[in-house]
């Protein structure tokens, strides 16, 4: 990986949330939402982040954008460590990185018109003067295939898919380089999902965007991502190219996840052997010793309960954190 091609370099990102109790809000424990996560994202790449709910994928996205200030670790965005800057400087750097939200119903202010929602970033950063505002907003509407004349409508007058387009247009308003898509299609129905995915793909090509694509729908992630990281209990267990991951999953957890994806052919589906993961995800307050996955792993062996496996490159570009790999 050529060094100067890297847009985002995450090193040892850690995000603990304190659990407090009592009158004096003593810290009694901490939730290890994200625990020592490292990866790099190249310019123009779509980086998928998958895992069960509660595994820390959303928190990772938020921590990269500094919406949560990480407990430890570094996030280099074009060689600037975002964790070190704050205040006005951080506010200005938000122009380069934006977020698309999961819930298109909650992420738009019900009392603002669509035009004002989309144009808000331009106003906040003082990028437009009076008359240009309407023009720019109209352009953003067209960019996400909405009609500019809808600008004076309120969010509740739009459908879910249209609302998500508004959310996307808002994220694009500042011409960012990186967009974190936090489950952008999970709240939509399937036919709309496809439209939004196509739109995101088109925008990436036209505008040269880089995506971090967070999702739990594995087929969507395979379709849109170049590389995929699988998270489990705050840690990355496997990173590799998306086709490699789906064709040759090495971590038992990944294998279990993939085996849960339905195959749209009942004959094939009936014949394959499903790996059923038993049990629940352990509490991130008190993760199991050794490999976090060992209580649920079907291939657990002696060392798994003692040592935590390192993320290591097994074949070229395929990193796995498992003692068996």
């Amino acid at each position, binding site marked *: 990986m050529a060094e100067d091609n890297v847009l985002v370099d995450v090193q040892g990102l850690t995000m603990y949330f304190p659990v407090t109790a009592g009158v004096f809000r003593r810290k009694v424990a901490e939730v290890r939402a994200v625990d020592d996560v490292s990866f790099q994202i190249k310019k123009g790449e779509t980086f998928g982040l998958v895992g069960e709910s509660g595994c820390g994928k959303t928190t990772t996205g938020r921590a990269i954008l500094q919406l949560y200030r990480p407990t430890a670790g570094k996030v280099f965005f074009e060689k600037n460590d975002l964790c070190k800057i704050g205040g006005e400087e951080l506010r200005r750097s938000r122009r380069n990185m934006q977020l698309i939200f999961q819930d298109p119903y909650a992420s738009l*202010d*019900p*009392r*603002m018109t669509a035009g*004002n929602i989309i144009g*808000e970033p331009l106003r*906040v950063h003082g990028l437009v003067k009076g008359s240009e505002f309407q023009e720019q907003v109209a352009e953003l509407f067209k960019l996400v295939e909405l009609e500019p004349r809808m600008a*004076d409508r*309120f969010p509740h007058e739009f459908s879910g898919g249209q609302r998500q387009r508004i959310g996307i247009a808002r994220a694009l308003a500042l011409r960012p380089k990186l967009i974190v898509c936090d489950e952008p299609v999970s709240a939509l129905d399937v036919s709309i999902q496809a439209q939004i995915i196509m739109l995101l793909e088109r925008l990436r090509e036209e505008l040269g965007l880089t995506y971090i694509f967070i999702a739990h729908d594995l087929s969507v992630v395979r379709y849109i991502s170049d590389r995929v990281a699988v998270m489990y209990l705050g840690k990355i267990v496997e990173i590799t190219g998306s086709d490699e991951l789906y064709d040759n999953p090495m971590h038992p957890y990944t294998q279990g996840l993939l085996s849960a994806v339905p195959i749209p052919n009942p004959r094939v589906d009936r014949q394959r052997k499903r790996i059923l993961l038993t049990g629940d995800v352990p509490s991130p307050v008190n993760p199991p010793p050794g490999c976090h996955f060992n209580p649920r792993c079907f291939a657990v062996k002696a060392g798994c309960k003692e040592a935590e496996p390192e993320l290591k490159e097994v074949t070229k570009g395929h990193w796995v954190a498992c003692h068996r790999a």
Partner: protein
Amino acid sequence: MSETTAPVAAGLKVKRRAFLVDVFIRLVKTKPLGTVGLAIVLLLFVVGIGADLIAPYGYNEVDLGSRLATPGVGGHVLGTDHLGRDLLSRIIYGARISMIVALGASSLAAVLYITIGVISGFFGGKVDMIIQRFVDAVMAFPGLVIMLTVISVLGPGLMQIVITLGILGGIGGRVRVVRSAVIAIKENVYVEAARAIGSPPFTTMMRHILPNIFAVIIINFTVEMGGVILTESTLSFLGFGIPPPFPSWGAMLSESGRRYMLLAPWMAVWPGLALSLVVYGINMLGDALRDLLDPRLRGGLGRYGRLKGVITK
């Protein structure tokens, strides 16, 4: 490009006005008591503003020849008091005082509790804790005692009443109401979205928090108005309010109303009736507005603004 600018800008204005018009239409349609309340409040304002034109006599026009006149006698529709002053005129001028006190004190209070409540709720943490302990302390005091103390220091007068009631109303329990509304709004994803686009805290508060707690503010403002009018009357009744000869309803009840209660009961009946009617009207209006504006109650505006079909562009 001016062609696209105009309709969009115009559209915004239409919608803004439409919100209040919409509330008004639904008030009339679904809340008869609230409509009566609104009528009473409007009547209070009209009478208060136009007192000079409406009142048949001056508020301190003494006519010793017709003291304690029975209602209807000698052109005094509501009778006269012990100094021969026309009671209708005094009630009408009293409406002006009630109006000034209600609007002035509630507005001052609103500015305070909105500012403090929004800051407390939005920033949370230590700021919130300090502010809330302060509010606790204020609420622990008996309000009337503070007011009597402050006014005996400042001296009686309309301005003193407005400022005292306004400040005391603005740092008490309503701070907490606004704060909890802000905390609820703050958790919405669109507030996080504002942060993600780099919106500074003050801008976020003005653009996202305030418009979304608008309903709470209207309701609090209305309820506060009723309370303030009553408190002013209480103070005047106790002799700490508007000094004579200004015709505060509360003062009219106490100063002479009590003394002549058996001889000329109308002296106490009219101001008491006016007071009850106005406070009742304001409370009814406040109740109706709460029902209409609180999205959690059925028939309200719903989660995402007004009901569909009510507004057609």
